[in-house]
């Protein structure tokens, strides 16, 4: 399934999902244990980004600590409007993720904004534009988060 990833891609992904150095030459530091040169690592990460394997390379912040909020929302979207509504919803830069799921509530998206107030505004705007009810499911407690994957 991951045949489009070669051994170096996998090594880079598996080694660099956390703990990237905060130092003057971080790519050189991270490249050494992988047996790569600084430039080879930079090129490889740029390539993984260009291929869409990485959404980005950098820090993952805790939104609440930045005054922001990320809220999971669900909608029931008629099948014949699904693609059009997905396009409308995705046009908001605050919409970070959007997935179709197999349930009556069939569209699940995350509104991530720099304030809880902006999150609520975006939900209201989406509801108004699409004419559909947006159900926000704000987070009450986080028990575990570790999205590191083994490639």
């Amino acid at each position, binding site marked *: *399934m991951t045949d489009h990833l070669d051994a170096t891609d996998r090594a880079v992904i598996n080694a660099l999902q956390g703990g990237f150095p905060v130092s003057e030459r971080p790519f050189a530091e991270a490249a050494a244990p992988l047996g790569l040169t600084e430039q080879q690592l930079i090129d490889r990460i740029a390539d993984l980004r260009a291929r869409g394997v990485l959404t980005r390379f950098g820090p993952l912040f805790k939104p609440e600590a930045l005054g922001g909020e990320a809220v999971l929302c669900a909608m029931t979207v008629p099948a014949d409007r699904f693609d059009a509504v997905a396009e409308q919803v995705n046009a908001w830069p605050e919409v970070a993720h959007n997935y179709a799921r197999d349930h009556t509530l069939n569209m699940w998206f995350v509104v991530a904004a720099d304030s809880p107030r902006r999150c609520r505004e975006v939900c209201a705007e989406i509801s108004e534009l699409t004419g559909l009810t947006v159900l926000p499911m704000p987070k009450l407690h986080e028990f575990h988060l*570790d999205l590191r994957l083994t490639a």
Partner: protein
Amino acid sequence: MTAVDRFPPLPDADMALVAALRDGLPLSHRPYADLGARVGMSEAEVLSRLSALAEAGIIRRFGAIVRHHEAGYRANAMVVLDVPDERVAEVGRTLGGEKAVTLCYRRVRAPGRWPYNLYAMVHGRDRAVVTAEVREMLARLGLARLPHDILFSTHRYKQTGGRYGRARGEA
């Protein structure tokens, strides 16, 4: 286990750095110097501010943010359970401690529309395998009799990062 706390506001300089990092770290030999040049900070100041943000847990991890589908994880299951409020902390800790669970959150219910209050994500390469894993896990933990559902994603329409931070001059 982390509560969804409120945090004191960060200084404008930190918020400017956060905004400059929305698309990630510059892929260059001196990325922190280049980042500093964009926001009017020295490399040393960028290094010290980012180290402090990491130390404080505000940066939760730093490196490659992988799109799971492209990394071969095609089966993405959102497992949802309706757990009585008085048990949800215990069940959340138990599920969150499972190796297969990448994320476990308690969320508000939507009365009349959506009864579930506990969410656990399980990523795998094959839908049938993930379904069997989830069923085995719920049975082993004694949770199979709680109302629950497994929602697989059938299509990804968007997966990017959040737009946090505040560039200088941004409202």
